[in-house]
C-alpha cells in the first residue's frame, strides 16, 4: 500500500529587523492599516529597492546555524508570476523581489529529534536537508468583501524581509515535520533572526505532500498552505497523506494543486486563488546589483568599508549557543535526562529559570528538574502563562526546595506550599508553611500515638510484615502520612513503625 511522504517544506520566516528588506519603513505587527508604508512599499513609480544590511546578516546567520554554504555572491530576481485579482493582489508592484537563480545560502542541514516510547523518553535523532535560504519580500494583505465586491488592502507587511527556507522531502509524517519546524523555530529564536510566532505569521509553513508505493518514485504532490501552528502542521500533513492514499486506493487521481488547511474541520481543501495555468515567470531584478558578502576583513577588496560589508566569519564567531548544544550541555552539566533537556529548551526562558533555581539551592539538579518540568511547567500550561509571567520566581522556588532539603517540610507538603505560592503572589514558602501549619511533625510522642493507632487497626498488614513481607510497611507509612496530612517526618515514622511491628 502507498506510503506517505511529506515532500518537503517551504518555510517563510519573517526577519526580525527594525526596517523592511528594501525600504526604511518600520516593521511592526498590528499597527493601524497602511501606517508602515514608504513610497517604495506603495510602489510609487520611480522608487527603487535599497537592500537592508540587517536582513542580509540575518540570512547569513541563519544559514551558518543550519550548516549552509554561504554564497559570497548571490542574485535578486523578479518573480512576475503574480496576477492581480481579488485573492492575490498583495504584491503592489505586480512582482516580488526574491532570489531564484542563486540564493544567499544553500545546502544545509537541520538536525532534530523525535521523542518516542511510552514515557517519551526515547530520543530519535533525524536530519532534514536544507536546499536553500533565499531573501525575499513579504506581501501586503488583501481582504475581499464578496458582498460589496470591495478589496481592502493593508500594506504594512508589504516589503518586510523574509527568509524562505526550502527543506528537502526527508520527512515521512506530520510528526517529523512538526518536530523539524519546532527545532527550526527554536534555532531562529536563539539566533534572534526571526521571532518565530506562527500565529502572528512570523513563521509560515507550506507543506508539499505526496505519496508513493515503496520502491516507486514519489507521486503527484499537493501543496498545503495556511498552516498557522505546529500542531496543525502535523495534522494537516497526516490528513493530506491519508487523503491521497484514499484517492489512489479508490482508483482516483491526485492533482497537482494548492490546498488550504481548515483547522476547524481538520481537513485540507482546494484553494481558489490558483485557478488556471500556473506559469512561473522570473527575470533578473535590474535595480539591484549582485549581493556580495565577504569571508572576513582580509578578503575585502580595496575601497570597501568594513563597516558597510557583511563578513561571514565575523557573524560565525558571534553565533549564540544553539538549542542542540544547549541540550547536550544541560545533560552533561546537570546529569538530567535527555528528555528533560528537550522540555527545558522547548520552553522559552525555562533553561534560565532552571539554572537560576540551581544557583540558589543546594538541592541536586536531578531533584530540581522535576519541580521545574512538572510542577512549574504544569502550572504555567494550565494557566496559559509563559515562563516570564510566572508568579513563582526562581528564588522563591529555590527557598521552598531548600526548606524541603533541610527537612523542614515533607515533599508532599512542599507540593502543597507550591500550589499556594502560585495562587498568592508574594507569600514566601516559610510564610505559607507557618500560616497553614505544614511544617514537619517530629514530636516523637505525637507520632508514637498515631503509629500505634495505625498498627492497632491493621492487624493483617502487621502480620504480613512479621512474616517477612517488609514492603507492606510502606502502606502503613502512607496511612500515617495521611493522618498527618503529609507532614510527618518520614525517617522518624519508619523507625517507629519498624519498632512497633517487630
Amino acid at each position, binding site marked *: 500500500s502507498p506510503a506517505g511522504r511529506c515532500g518537503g517544506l517551504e518555510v517563510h520566516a519573517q526577519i526580525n529587523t527594525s526596517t523592511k528588506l528594501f525600504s526604511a519603513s518600520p516593521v511592526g505587527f498590528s499597527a493601524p492599516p497602511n501606517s508602515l508604508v514608504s*513610497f517604495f512599499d*506603495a*510602489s*510609487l*513609480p*520611480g*522608487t*527603487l*529597492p*535599497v*537592500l537592508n544590511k540587517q536582513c542580509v546578516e540575518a540570512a547569513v546567520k541563519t544559514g551558518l546555524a543550519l550548516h549552509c554554504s554561504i554564497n559570497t555572491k548571490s542574485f535578486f530576481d*523578479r518573480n*512576475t508570476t503574480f496576477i*492581480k*485579482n*481579488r485573492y492575490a*493582489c498583495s504584491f*503592489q*508592484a*505586480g*512582482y516580488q523581489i526574491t532570489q531564484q537563480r542563486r540564493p544567499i545560502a544553500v545546502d544545509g542541514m537541520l538536525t532534530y529529534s523525535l521523542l518516542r516510547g511510552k514515557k517519551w523518553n526515547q530520543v530519535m535523532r533525524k536530519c532534514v536537508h536544507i536546499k536553500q535560504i533565499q531573501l525575499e519580500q513579504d506581501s501586503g494583505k488583501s481582504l*475581499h468583501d464578496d458582498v460589496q*465586491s*470591495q*478589496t481592502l*488592502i493593508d500594506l504594512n507587511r508589504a516589503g518586510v524581509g523574509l527568509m524562505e527556507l526550502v527543506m528537502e522531502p526527508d520527512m515521512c509524517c506530520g510528526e517529523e515535520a512538526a518536530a523539524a519546524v519546532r527545532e527550526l523555530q527554536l534555532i531562529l529564536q536563539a539566533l534572534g533572526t526571526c521571532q518565530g510566532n506562527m500565529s502572528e505569521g512570523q513563521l509560515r509553513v507550506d507543506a508539499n505532500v505526496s505519496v508513493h508505493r515503496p520502491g516507486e518514485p514519489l507521486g503527484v504532490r499537493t501543496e498545503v498552505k495556511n498552516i498557522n501552528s505546529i500542531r496543525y502542521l502535523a495534522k494537516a500533513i497526516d490528513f493530506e497523506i491519508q487523503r491521497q492514499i484514499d484517492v489512489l486506493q479508490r482508483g482516483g487521481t491526485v492533482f497537482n494543486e494548492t490546498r488550504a488547511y481548515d483547522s476547524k474541520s481538520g481537513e485540507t481543501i482546494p484553494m481558489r486563488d490558483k485557478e488556471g495555468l500556473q*506559469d*512561473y*515567470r*522570473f*527575470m533578473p531584478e*535590474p*535595480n*539591484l*546589483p549582485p549581493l556580495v558578502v565577504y569571508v572576513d576583513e582580509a578578503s575585502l577588496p580595496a*575601497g570597501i568599508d568594513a563597516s558597510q560589508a557583511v563578513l561571514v566569519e565575523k557573524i560565525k564567531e558571534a553565533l549564540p549557543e544553539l538549542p542542540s548544544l544547549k541540550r547536550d550541555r544541560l545533560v552533561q552539566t546537570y546529569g538530567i535526562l535527555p528528555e528533560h533537556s528537550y522540555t527545558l529548551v522547548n520552553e522559552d526562558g525555562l533553561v534560565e529559570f532552571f539554572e537560576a533555581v540551581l544557583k540558589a539551592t543546594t538541592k541536586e539538579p536531578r531533584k530540581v528538574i522535576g519541580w521545574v518540568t512538572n510542577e512549574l511547567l504544569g502550572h504555567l500550561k494550565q494557566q496559559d502563562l509563559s515562563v516570564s509571567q510566572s508568579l513563582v520566581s526562581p528564588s522563591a522556588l529555590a527557598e521552598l526546595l531548600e526548606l524541603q532539603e533541610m527537612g523542614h517540610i515533607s515533599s508532599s507538603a512542599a507540593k502543597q506550599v507550591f500550589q499556594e505560592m502560585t495562587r498568592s503572589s508574594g507569600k514566601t514558602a516559610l510564610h505559607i508553611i507557618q500560616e497553614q501549619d505544614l511544617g514537619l511533625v517530629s514530636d516523637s510522642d505525637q507520632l508514637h500515638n498515631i503509629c500505634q493507632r495505625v498498627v492497632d487497626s491493621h492487624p493483617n498488614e502487621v502480620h504480613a510484615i512479621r512474616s517477612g513481607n517488609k514492603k507492606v510497611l510502606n502502606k502503613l507509612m502512607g496511612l500515617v502520612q495521611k493522618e498527618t496530612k503529609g507532614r510527618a517526618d518520614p525517617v522518624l515514622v519508619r523507625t517507629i513503625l519498624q519498632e512497633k511491628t517487630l
Partner: protein
Amino acid sequence: MLSLTIKEVSLALREGRISPTELCKKCLNRIKKMHHLNAYITVTEETALQQAQQAEDRLQRGVPKGPLDGVPFAIKDNFCTANIKTTCASNMLKDYTPPFNATVVQKLLDQGGVLVGKTNLDEFAMGSGSIDGVFGPVKNPWSFAAPYRELTGASPDSDWVITGGSSGGSAAAVASLSSFLALGSDTGGSTRNPGALCGVVALKPTYGLLSRHGLIPLVNSMDVPGIMTRCVSDAAMVLDILKGHDIRDSTTVHSPSTSAEFPEDFDVQNIRVGIPKEYHAPGLSAQAAAQWSRVADLFERAGARVEQVSLPHTQFSIVCYYVLCCAEVASNMARFDGLEYGHRSETGHSTEVLYASTRHEGFNDVVRGRILCGNYFLLKKNYEHYFLKAQRVRRLIAEDFRRVFDAGVDVLLTPTTLTDAARYHDFKSENSQARSVQEDLFTQPVNLAGLPAVCVPTALSKRGLPIGLQLIGPAFQDKKLLGVARWLEQRVGFPSISDCEDSLESQDQTGEMKREFNTAV
C-alpha cells in the same frame, strides 16, 4: 539673452546684467510664444517665479548656490517632481502628482536652478517621435525656422517635422530657447535621437553614473537620465552636478575612476577614432553619410588616427533590445492598477474588472503591446528561447565595444539617426515598431552596453534641418568623450537657431540669415 549658453547666462546673472526674475519671465514668455510646439505638458510658472525670486535674493547677497543659480531648466515629464504633476504623457498618470523629487531634479534645484516646466514625450517614453503621448505630438522648432521654410517651401501648418523622441519636448525646449538645459531620459536613444533632430547637444552618460531614483522606468537596466544643452561645455558642467552615488539607487557607482576635469581644449592629435563598419546601414541618408565622412576627415586632418572597426553583433541589437525592453516593461507597468494613484476606471463593478478597464483606458496601444509581448517572452517555455538568448546577445554586443576599446580606440564616431527629421505625416504613416527599428539602430547598442555617448549637431541638411553625429566612449570616460565632442563642436560651426530667429518668432517675416547655413555637402 535666451540663446546664451548656461555659462554665459550664469555670468550675466552674476554680473547683474539680468536678474533671475527677468530671465525667468523671458523664458516663460518664450514658452507661451512657442506654445504651438507643444514642448511642455506642465508649465510651472508660479513656482518658477518663486524660485527665481529666491535666486535673485541669493545673487544680490552675493551668495549664489552654484553656476545654475537662477538658470531656467526643464524636465522630461517622466521624472518625478514633488507637488508637480508627472504624467509620462499617459492617461494612466494624467493627474498624478508625486510626493518626492527625482534625485537629478533635486540636485538641479539644490544648485538654484529654476524649473520652468515638464516636457512632452511619447507615452512612458516608448517611441522615437514624441508623437505618441496623450497630450499630442511635439513639433520641431526648426520646422518654423527660416532654413527649412526657405529651402523646402514647406507650409507651416501641415509640413512641420517631428522632434524625434522620446525626449522630444526637452529637445524642443532647449532648441526653441525656452530653457537653457533640459533633462531627458535615454533607454535606446531617447535623448540623443531628438537631440540630433533638434540640433542640441545630447549626452547619454555611462549607466550607473547618474541616479535613476525618481525616473519612472522604461527599462531599468538601460535607462539613464540624459542631458540636453546648447553646447558641450554646458553638458559637462551639468554632468558634474548630477553624477555620483545615490543611496536611493543601488546601481549608481561610487567615485568613478575617471572623474578628471573636463578638458576645454582637448587635443585630438594621436587619438584613435573608430568608424564601425556595421553602421553603414541601409537607409542611411546620403547627407548623414556625408556628415559622417566630413567629420571623420576633420579628425584625420587634426592628426587623429581614424580607422574602421567592427562591431559584429550590431545587427542583432534591435531585436535583442526589443525582447529585453518588453520583459522589463511588462513587470514595470504591473504596478499601475488605479488603486493607490493614477487613473482609476469608473466601470469597475468588481476588482478584476476595475483592474482590467483601468489598464485598458490608462495605456495606449504601444504600451499594451509591449506588456503583452514581455509577458510572452518571460513565459517559462519561452524564457530560454527569448529572454536568455537576448541577454546573451546583449553580452556579445557589450563585448564588441569592449574589444574595440581594449584595442586602443578612444572614441567611436557614428551617425545618430538615419536621416534628418521626418515630416509628421510621413512619420505617422509608418507603424511604431517599424519606426523604432529604423530610428534606434545607431543608439540602442550603446544602451545595451551601458556606455556613454554624446550627440553633437554638425550641420543643417539640404532641407535646413539639423544633422547630428554620435561619439561613443568607454564606460566612465564621459569627460574625455565630452572633450572630444567639444573639439568637434568648435570645428563644425553649427548655427544657433537664434541666427535663423526671425521666421521662428514671427512667421510672416522672411528670415534674413545672419550667417550662411552650414548645409551638408
